[in-house]
């Protein structure tokens, strides 16, 4: 039942951007109103590379501390120039509003001395309506 309510919330308030190739993540900003203990955001990570990459999605608070959000899926392979939806359900944790960062991280290429990890973060603001 909780899952169904969460899904309903996601469908009601989920952000539906114009999906486009060659974007690392879209949208990067959003405000969500929710009538439940959680709010949901749908983001679209994309792979701008010409090769398959592994992508991980992480959720952080304003101080970049990890947030116990449900991410579906949280890690996956993404084909070249492809994009896919990821559903992120963030608990309010008893607060009336919550700001989080949802970040798409690419896994660095192996066997290099200085590896660079690219991270695209979107800022999202959830408001709990009573």
């Amino acid at each position: 039942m909780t899952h169904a309510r969460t899904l309903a919330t996601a469908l009601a308030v989920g952000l539906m951007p114009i999906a486009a190739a060659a974007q690392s993540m879209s949208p990067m900003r959003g405000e969500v109103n929710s009538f439940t203990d959680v709010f949901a955001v749908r983001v679209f990570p994309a792979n701008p590379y010409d090769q398959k990459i592994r992508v991980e999605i992480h959720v952080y608070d304003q101080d970049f501390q990890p947030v116990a959000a449900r991410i579906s899926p949280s890690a996956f392979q993404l084909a070249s120039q492809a994009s896919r939806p990821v559903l992120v359900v963030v608990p309010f944790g008893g607060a009336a509003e919550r700001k989080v960062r949802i970040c798409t991280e690419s896994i660095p290429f192996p066997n290099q001395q200085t590896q660079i990890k690219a991270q695209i973060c979107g800022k999202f603001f959830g408001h709990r309506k009573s």
Partner: protein
Amino acid sequence: MTSFRAVFGAALLVACIDQSALATTQNVIFNGTITATCTLVVATNGTMTVSPDLQSLSSHNSGGSAGTVTLTTTGGVSLSVDPVTITTVPAADTTSTTWTPTYSAAGTHSIAETGSATSLGTPGADLVSVNLAGTKGGSNRFASGNYQATVTVRCE
């Protein structure tokens, strides 16, 4: 009867001409919305080399090279690098190292080398150079072996 046919034909012809005269144009509206967007593509990773006094392991040293990342954005985002937290050092290196990541950018936005966040207000594309320097103080020295560090470049 002949005159009736002539009159009817003329009326039909005029009616056809009138049809073309009634043609109108309609506008088709296209709307598009682009939200703040940022794309980072890691082009090359970097290489660090050690200084003659063995107290600096840096991409700035002779023979070292910066990593490069291409950035494309609509603007309204900021670029930053995280403190280095993921490192691999040889077992012989038991002393502490201070890691300092920095970046600079050339292209639409010109950013001098910095370790702080930079706001990118306008759209454009840039080549971002990412450097990393590890330093040891006092009598500490880098040891022989393989070093590896990960720098996180963030656009948000």
